[in-house]
């Protein structure tokens, strides 16, 4: 465990912050630009996982377990969200035979 912490700390904290920010931005871009509901959904997961990475890095650098515990909460709630979200996407697929969000224009976007 000690060696793992040292391995993580071998990389400067700023690199973790930059990497997380880049992954987060990729996720945001994916949500805004892609038209497939599943891909949008994956982009959201990317955003959440960049947060997990960031929290873990901060947690190791501060020697404080609270950040890593938060990561578990995020994972659990993201799983709950996936369950509901995929069910909604399946429901839409049954009605329209498509998961392209461009068909969702009955209400003005």
């Amino acid at each position: 465990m000690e060696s793992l912490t040292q391995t993580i700390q071998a990389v400067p904290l700023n690199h973790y912050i930059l990497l997380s920010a880049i992954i987060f931005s990729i996720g945001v871009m994916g949500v805004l630009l892609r038209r497939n509901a599943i891909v949008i959904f994956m982009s959201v997961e990317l955003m959440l996982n960049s947060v997990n990475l960031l929290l873990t890095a901060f947690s190791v650098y501060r020697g404080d377990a609270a950040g890593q515990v938060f990561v578990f909460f995020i994972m659990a709630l993201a799983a709950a969200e996936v369950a509901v979200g995929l069910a909604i996407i399946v429901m839409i697929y049954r009605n329209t035979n498509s998961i392209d969000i461009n068909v969702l224009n009955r209400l003005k976007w």
Partner: protein
Amino acid sequence: MTTLIIISVLPIVILYLGLYKVQKALLPVTIIGLLAAMTAAITQWNDSAVPIYHGMMLFNNFSVAFSVVSIVSTILILLLSKGYFERISSHIAEYYAIILFSLAGIIVMVSYHNLVMLFIGIEIMSVSLYILAGIRKKDFASNEAALKYFLMGAFSTGFLLFGIALIYGASGSFDLDGIRDWIVTHSRSNDPLFYTGVMLIIVGLCFKVGAAPFHFWTPDVYEGAPSLITLFMSTVVKVAGFAAFLRLFSACFFTISSFWAPVLLVITIITLFIGNITALYQQSFKRMMAFSSISHAGYLLFAIVALGAGSANSIFVYAAAYSIASIIAFGALILVKQQTRTDNFDGFNGLAKNNPFLALVLTVSMLSLAGIPLTAGFIGKFFMFSGALAHYNTLLVVVAVVNAIISIFYYFRVIIAMYFRSAERAEVEVPAYYKFVLGISAIATIVIGVYPAFISALI
């Protein structure tokens, strides 16, 4: 904390009742359980509030007041649901259970003392609402509302979480007191991580409460979801969002208000104008109510922009007035829609002739939403404006008064349609439950408007 436990156990009991097909007992058991939870909350009024569960929750007067408002609004909404869910599906226990789970999340949101609980509360509430928005499985508008709400909700959660992570990185704590102490001891330092975190949290929370420019999901979701669920989202959920917003900013970020107050000021002004001006152009009553809820989010943001000792109380009064008036408006909409099959303004034509009671309570509700004196809405706006004036935010108050005048136009369209347009129509049947809820709400609106003293100094 008994409130949270009762509200978490109650939906499980409801699910069992549904399993054993005791359909008749669902509503009474839910109401009795909620009344018990409310009593449990009220008994904790003025107790010495210390953080419990290792500093995760703090059940102080603020939480008690907002829990009670949420529970009372939920009870009134559930009374309107009599006979509503049966038309959607025969398995109605699940609907009650999911609404109650969502309420459990709301109780967490108004009594958190740690950013972990803020996140968990928001998620419990939102995940339940994603399901509720889509309960009409064959209806395309309901599907679309569920997907849009889900994608936008998950997206905004990402921003909120990134903000929380950055604040943790800067201050090393999720605890509200810990963060506040860190800000006090590092008041001169200019930590970019921390300030970026605050901005991202503002973005995430503004998404949740539907403030412009993050409001674009609101009208579609509110229009597509079933009316009763829209009512729940635009009252209880919005109030909880603002309670969580205020709790975070008044407990933690109070000392750095010179940093975020200008941002929120701009957001407030944009929200007011977008909400009110777009509402003018709507033909659908339901969509008009969605835009009106955006503009009310703008008024509620006043209390956070002009943060002070009275902020909690002004949000409380405004939220109570707004929730009661919305319950009347949507209750009337559900009844009218059952007869006319449309939610346009035309559906209300000539309502006063055959349904004087319905027209009267809807008039009271519209006057209250518009903020006419002698209604609760006026008292709410009065508190908000005087709070802003105490901080010399004259620009904000001028903008708000202009917007209040604009809003009178679209609220009065309903009243004009009911009283001055004629249409051939039969009497709308008003069930006893609806009479009770609409009557109580209208009386409460006028009582708060005429005699605000008993509610104005609670928190």
